[in-house]
């Protein structure tokens, strides 16, 4: 059951288990980190450039850069954990039938694991620099930010 406390001391008192308290703390810590990571990401993808100009080359350049691989992977991990735990709170509140709740969780958690796996593969296990010519890389090295 989600903790409804407004203060850490209350949260500790309300948490049924240490794990539930750990999730309560995680939501706040990851949320604070994600504010900067995600707003930075949106700024780079929508304000610094025209989001309508994003194409394969932009992705390949960006995912050829180690800094952005790390940035994106931290963002991917934290946002999926934060989002899926948030969804767990919502399902516990809104899906009253225990069987339906159980299966909804099975399906959504599986989907999240799949998305995490595919996203991690593209960030860590695929060489996007292969398709880029040396010229393209030099030409756009500033643009990848």
């Amino acid at each position, binding site marked *: 059951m989600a903790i409804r406390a407004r203060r850490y001391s209350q949260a500790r008192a309300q948490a049924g288990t240490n794990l539930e308290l750990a999730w309560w703390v995680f939501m706040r810590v990851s949320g604070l980190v994600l504010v900067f990571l995600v707003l930075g990401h949106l700024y780079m993808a929508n304000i610094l450039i025209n989001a309508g100009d994003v194409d394969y080359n932009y992705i390949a350049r960006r995912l050829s850069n180690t800094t952005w691989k790390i940035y994106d992977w931290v963002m991917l991990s934290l946002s999926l954990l934060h989002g899926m735990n948030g*969804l767990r709170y919502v399902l516990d509140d809104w899906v009253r039938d225990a069987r339906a709740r159980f299966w909804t969780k099975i399906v959504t958690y599986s*989907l999240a694991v799949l998305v995490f796996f595919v996203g991690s593969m593209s960030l860590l296990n695929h060489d996007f620099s292969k398709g880029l010519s040396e010229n393209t890389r030099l030409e756009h090295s500033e643009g990848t930010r």
Partner: protein
Amino acid sequence: MYRGREGQWAFFLHRLSGIAILLYLLIHVLNISAAMWGPEVSERLFAIEHTPIFRIGLVGVIAAVLYHALNGLRVILMDFTAWGVRLQRELWYGVWLLFALFFVPALIKIVPEILRTMGVI
């Protein structure tokens, strides 16, 4: 806790924006990761995403993220400060003030881009 008033709206919108962001996140990661299968696959997906209706949807996602981020900071202040809960209503108005401060300039930058692709301007 504060039923039917600002606090409950803040809570409800936090959930709604959270669900919207999660849905977009799952689609977005799969969509960007599709670049692993080469430019043709990617370009076909981008052709869909760069249509005006999807661009407008993306503006909605930006709004959802901005509200969720700012109201999330409000939740953290309520949880970890002595005055956060007492001033939760004022903090919520602050959330909307900051929201407007960031979102209006973003609209001024992005909306003309969308209108140009539509040939309106």
